[in-house]
């Protein structure tokens, strides 16, 4: 019941906003729908804490410790982004970059995107997972090109083709899983695509088929995670789309794609009886981290800078899950949570900073503390948090990843440390003059909504100091799924 509400509200909201999205109060409606989804998800979380994991609709949908916190995180960031986007889009409209029709498209697609991600997270059926991931791509393509500038159309086309091809490969992987499973679980029925059923018989699946399937699934969904060398679409899509879209792409979509890979990895681990899937994740993760940090140096655009930082952090998470084991998986799950909160907060602050300066180029953004102190502080604190400064939560998860790496794969530790140091120098060196320094830039026409930034950062800070019992219990149970 709660699952139906969580998925149904944004879906209905998308239809409603498709009709009324150009009205003056559309932004408030968007916030209200997101709030309703948040409340439904809160009810779901309460029920899971009380009754434990559950499934619904003939096992087509399910909630277990692995996806429950991601659902909560997704609706929370979805809500705060809706709050942020209200004044942000109003300022964009005031600057003449958007018209009513575009705003209608934006609001409607925003809710559709949320619905697609929530279906992907809660479905038990690998086929639906694929359909939902594709729907999430389709609903954001037109958002990336919302401004209809040359650069934004180019970015959206790249996003569409690369992710379309990637996700087609993931479909081939899904078909192969079905091939392997239908002998065990009976053909023509849905059973052979249900994750819980696959998980139960994973030890008996044909290893050759599952091995090949996992390669396709990893490359396919990995394109959406932004793993190097398949990350080309990511910086462009983040830089050229409207900032709320960058925030949800970075904070939520990448997580959901990684979630899809991890679900498949659990099956592959069980079928292959070897460390191969883990090694592949470690390889892709490390490559993405290093690749992204060295490209950080060459960035001139603030949103591209933080997009590359997202690739770096997705790499760290992928590496952590690749190492496996209870501590590293715990660290990976924690990192998913804190990165999502911190990165969306940074995009909120960066969005208002670019609006105030009238440019996304970093040398044009100066002296935020003087003109917009809250934007300046938000950007500075967010940057410190994402760079892994204690006491923020990112420090805790990165510390756990590094210590596990030191114990189990010592060769990887110096690579990770160098990457983190390079990222620190590159990002801090660029953010510092943007926040301090002098400027003559005028103030914004509407007061920016900085409450979401500070809510996110407060949560990240709280997670760095102590993790609530229910959350750490979920992390631990989910980590058990990975260790089998």
């Amino acid at each position, binding site marked *: 019941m709660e699952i139906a509400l969580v998925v149904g509200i944004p879906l209905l909201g998308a239809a409603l906003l498709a009709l009324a999205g150009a009205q003056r109060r559309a932004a408030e409606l968007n916030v209200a729908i997101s709030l309703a989804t948040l409340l439904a998800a809160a009810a779901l979380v309460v029920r899971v804490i009380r009754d434990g994991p559950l499934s619904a609709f003939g096992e087509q949908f399910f909630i277990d410790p692995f996806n429950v916190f991601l659902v909560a995180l997704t609706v929370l960031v979805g809500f705060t982004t809706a709050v942020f986007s209200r004044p942000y889009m109003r300022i964009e409209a005031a600057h003449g970059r958007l018209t009513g029709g575009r705003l209608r498209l934006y609001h409607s697609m925003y809710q559709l995107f949320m619905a697609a991600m929530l279906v992907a997270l809660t479905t038990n059926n690998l086929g639906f997972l694929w359909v939902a991931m594709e729907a999430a791509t389709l609903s954001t393509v037109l958002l990336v090109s919302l401004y209809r500038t040359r650069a934004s159309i180019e*970015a959206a086309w790249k996003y569409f083709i690369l992710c379309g091809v990637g996700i087609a490969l993931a479909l081939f992987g899904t078909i192969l899983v079905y091939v392997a499973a239908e002998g065990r679980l009976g053909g023509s029925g849905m059973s052979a695509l249900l994750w819980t059923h696959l998980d139960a018989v994973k030890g008996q699946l044909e290893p050759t088929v599952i091995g090949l399937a996992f390669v396709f699934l990893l490359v396919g969904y990995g394109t959406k995670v932004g793993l190097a060398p398949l990350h080309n679409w990511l910086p462009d899509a983040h830089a050229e789309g409207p900032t709320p879209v960058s925030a949800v792409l970075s904070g939520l979509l990448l997580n959901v794609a990684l979630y899809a890979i991890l679900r498949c990895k659990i099956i592959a681990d069980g079928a292959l009886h070897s460390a191969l899937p883990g090694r592949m994740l470690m390889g892709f993760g490390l490559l993405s981290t290093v690749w992204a940090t060295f490209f950080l140096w060459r960035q001139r655009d603030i949103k591209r800078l933080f997009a590359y930082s997202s690739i770096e952090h997705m790499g760290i998470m992928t590496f952590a899950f690749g190492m496996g084991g209870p501590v590293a998986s715990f660290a990976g799950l924690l990192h998913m949570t804190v990165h999502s909160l911190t990165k969306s907060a940074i995009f909120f602050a960066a969005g208002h900073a670019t609006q105030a300066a009238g440019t996304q180029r970093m040398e044009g953004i100066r002296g935020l503390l003087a003109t917009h102190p809250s934007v300046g502080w938000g950007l500075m604190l967010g940057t410190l948090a994402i760079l892994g400064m204690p006491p923020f939560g990112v420090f805790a998860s990165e510390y756990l990843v590094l210590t596990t790496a030191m114990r189990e794969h010592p060769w990887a530790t110096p690579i990770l440390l160098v990457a983190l140091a390079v990222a620190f120098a590159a990002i801090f060196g660029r953010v510092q003059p943007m926040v301090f320094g002098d400027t003559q830039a005028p103030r914004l026409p509407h007061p920016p909504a900085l409450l979401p930034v500070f809510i996110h950062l407060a949560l990240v800070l709280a997670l760095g100091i102590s993790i609530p019992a229910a959350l750490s219990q979920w992390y631990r149970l989910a980590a058990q799924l990975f260790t089998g």
Partner: protein
Amino acid sequence: MPAPTFATQVLQTLAGALLLISFAMLAERRSRRLVTLLIWQGVVLVTSTLLVAVTAQQPHLFFSAALTLALKVGVLPWILLRLMRRLGIERDNEPLVNVPTLMLVGLGLVVFAFGLAQPITALATTVIRQTLGIALAVILLALLMILARRKAFTQVIGFLALENGLFFAATTTTYGMPMVVELGIALDVLVGVFIFGVFFFHIREQFDSLDLHHLETLKED
């Protein structure tokens, strides 16, 4: 291995035809003819799905065949042809460099696909699974086409050919995915083509051409 039945032989012939059409697409310069080839791929898919439905007694594959007929032989080509007329690119020729090299790379991909599928076909319980190699080859050839072409319209055709390969893999190796999932996939493809259509107009409005050379200004720095 038992001697292949007549139905299996027909199915393998159809698989061969699908692969041949993929090669033809790789070398085809005229957009109009590419759509025709895409329709032919659809026809082959419908026939093979019907064949599997009859021989394997899978009634839900009849629906799947009907859906394919409607979508891949009917609606999608109609949308594409309409788009071509609206955009005035019916007579467009795309200069293709190095067709022989492209063909050689394509051949290499086919060998690679068969190599990848070999361990699975060796385990095959049904003769039907042996077409997996061809399905994978069709997918890789479509990928090659997307990479090699520089026109937005042709890339979309490559994208649809890719989807055809996936569909062929699903029907011939597993008697098709469950119906609900297949409907979901069909819906995604249809919406995808609509968005592509919208995009063509945006691209042309901004760049005055559908040539993707203009879309190479965003670089990795």
